[in-house]
């Protein structure tokens, strides 16, 4: 087998700081001095003799990552927000350069996150196909030969000579996706975390990914969705804080990821570097699992209610915000989803949440969970407007089933839930 991707000691350093401290002036004098010296600073910065370098902080988004991937393999990449997954994909697709290390990539790298890049609303569908194809690195002859196929796939045949600004968002996405899907790169990178579009569209992306893998192409797949990772990849790597922690068969890697780094204490506090800048004005603070007495626990009793407390901060008012929880099994199957404003009365009351700190607290009644380990994810979004923050794997807790229905038989029960049902037995004759 030939090696498709060979990554050696890759590191990527980002600058942070400077920008955040810039506006924290103590005195008017500082403001004036700063304003007056601005042109000098600009000149200094341009010739590379910046004195700001000293007070800038550097972070390693990736550090010393090495792995090889054979042609035709599908590799999953898992890790928390800020683990360096997206940075790795950006380096592989040459959007950004590594600070250290080398990568050799055999063949063209395509990614489904570049869908629609360079589309211009004033151009027609036909014109945009050529434009977008050229941006993705296709030759004109190549686009010509695939043109009919692309149009068929996109299902917008009759509007192909209409400016795309008149398209519905669905038509727009279909056309954009059709072009990207026909690029036929030797290596495909898919970042589900960054994927745009509705669920239907994301499903289409995943479907396309499966096809591509079956054709013997190399695929790198980033997702927070463990069941998708388990379904689509045989092998996975785990990244944490920019470092490669392990590589192995997907099931093993997923188990490792779910049990490592997670707080065993039934509590998760977010570090500043784990929160993407795009989540502003929403900042997660903590998620706690509490038993009835208020104690933070990592193992709950299935026969008692449990409270999940999500604390967060808003830097400015947000309208229509809903903060929710995902509960899933460690195999990635969802058990349920719930939002704090599911109740319409609460929704009306908290129509706009002003800046400040909040706790959204949910009590999960007794007799829901089976004996297993469950993962809690959080989501903060305004429906149909924007998703501020999402982390599908915040923490995990164990469930102890002593006293639960059916425990007298001492056999494991299948299924993620173990409800106490209201059984009636009638004798009929």
């Amino acid at each position, binding site marked *: 087998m030939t090696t498709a991707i060979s990554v050696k000691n890759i590191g990527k350093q980002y600058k942070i700081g400077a920008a955040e401290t810039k506006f924290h002036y103590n005195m008017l004098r500082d403001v004036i001095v700063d304003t007056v010296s601005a042109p000098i600073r600009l000149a200094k*910065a341009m010739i590379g003799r910046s004195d700001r370098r000293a007070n800038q902080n550097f972070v390693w988004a990736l550090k010393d990552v090495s792995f090889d991937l054979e042609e035709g393999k599908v590799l999953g990449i898992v890790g928390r927000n800020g683990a360096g997954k997206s940075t790795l994909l950006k380096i592989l697709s*040459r*959007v950004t*350069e590594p600070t250290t290390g080398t990568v*050799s*990539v055999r063949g063209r790298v395509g990614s489904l996150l570049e869908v629609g*890049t360079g589309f211009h609303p*004033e151009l027609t569908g036909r014109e945009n196909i050529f434009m977008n194809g*050229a941006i993705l690195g296709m030759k004109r002859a190549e686009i010509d030969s695939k043109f009919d196929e692309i149009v068929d796939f996109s299902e917008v045949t009759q509007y192909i000579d209409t400016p795309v600004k008149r398209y519905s968002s669905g038509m727009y996405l279909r056309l954009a996706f059709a072009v990207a899907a026909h690029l036929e790169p030797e290596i495909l990178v898919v970042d589900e975390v960054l994927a745009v579009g509705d669920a239907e569209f994301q499903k289409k992306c995943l479907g396309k990914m499966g096809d591509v893998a079956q054709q013997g192409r190399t695929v790198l797949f980033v997702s927070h969705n463990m069941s998708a990772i388990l379904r689509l990849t045989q092998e996975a790597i785990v990244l944490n804080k920019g470092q490669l922690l392990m590589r192995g068969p997907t099931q093993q890697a997923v188990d490792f990821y779910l049990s490592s780094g997670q707080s065993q204490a039934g509590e998760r506090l977010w570090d500043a570097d784990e929160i993407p800048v795009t989540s502003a004005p929403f900042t997660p603070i903590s998620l706690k699992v509490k038993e009835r007495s208020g104690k933070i626990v990592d193992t709950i009793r299935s026969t008692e209610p449990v409270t999940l407390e999500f604390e967060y901060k808003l830097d400015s008012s947000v309208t229509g915000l809903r903060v929710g929880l995902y509960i899933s099994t460690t195999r990635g199957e969802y058990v349920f989803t719930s939002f704090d404003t599911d109740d319409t009365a609460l929704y009306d009351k908290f129509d706009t949440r002003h800046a400040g700190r909040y706790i959204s607290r949910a009590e999960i009644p007794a007799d829901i969970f089976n004996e297993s380990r469950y993962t809690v994810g959080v989501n903060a979004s305004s429906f149909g407007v924007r998703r501020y923050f999402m982390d599908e794997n915040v923490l995990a807790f164990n469930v102890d089933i002593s006293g639960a229905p059916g425990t007298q038989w001492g056999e494991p029960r299948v299924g993620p839930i173990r409800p106490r049902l209201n059984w009636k037995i009638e004798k009929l004759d």
Partner: protein
Amino acid sequence: MSELTKHEPHTIYIKPSKGLAALNLRDLWIYRELIFFMVWRDVKVKYKQTLLGMAWAVIQPVMTMLVFTFLFDKVAKLQTEGIPYPVFSFTALLPWGLFVVALNQGSRSLVAHNNMVTKIYFPRLILPISSVFSGLVDFAIAFVILVLLMFYYQVTPAWNLLWTLPLFLLLAIITALGVALWLSAINVQYRDVNQALPFLTQFWLFATPVAYSISAVPEKWQIVYALNPMVGVVNGFRWALLGTGNGPDITLWVSVGISILIFISGLFYFRSMEKTFADTI
């Protein structure tokens, strides 16, 4: 599968680019079709949903020429070496228009296409290059107007010098591209460029003999004056088309030197900043 076996994939090596030797001109060649598409898109989109459409390419330089004619010919009565003022100024407005487009679109090109820059790989040089090239379309239209003007005012072109015109056009492109390379790269990090552009354009116009003749500048200052590379371009255009001025003299060579210096240094500055564009934009 047949698609896969059609061509043998070549291996790409990704590593931190060191120093100034990283001018990846091979990639620029591979992506040459993209330049064509970007120019084509700019031209197509530029006058869409405008009432007058392509007529704007004519109206803009003609209106400027009319204003100049009123101010500098009728009011200030500047001397124009025997050429009717409208032809005299329009000859200079041709390369100047090209330069202004490059200065404005080119300097904003990276920031304007930030979704491309942060999502996919392509040689970033393509963005300023295609902005400059798309100015050539307006240039060609304005050139036709100049021919009509010369016909109307019965100005005979300097037939024996006309062959040098492409060289001066090349000089105009190099100058415009050099400045666009510098400013577009700086603009990624410091949006001050956006603020400075209108002022810079205006200032540069006054410092260039578009509305007036270089003979208005005292002899001893002309070399200093020619440090502005557009001086060489504009004088060159007048010389090649109308036969005015001294032709290639020391001022031209100063302008050419500066122009090449800006271009080469701009190329290297751009390349050295290119690796951080996606991170800082």
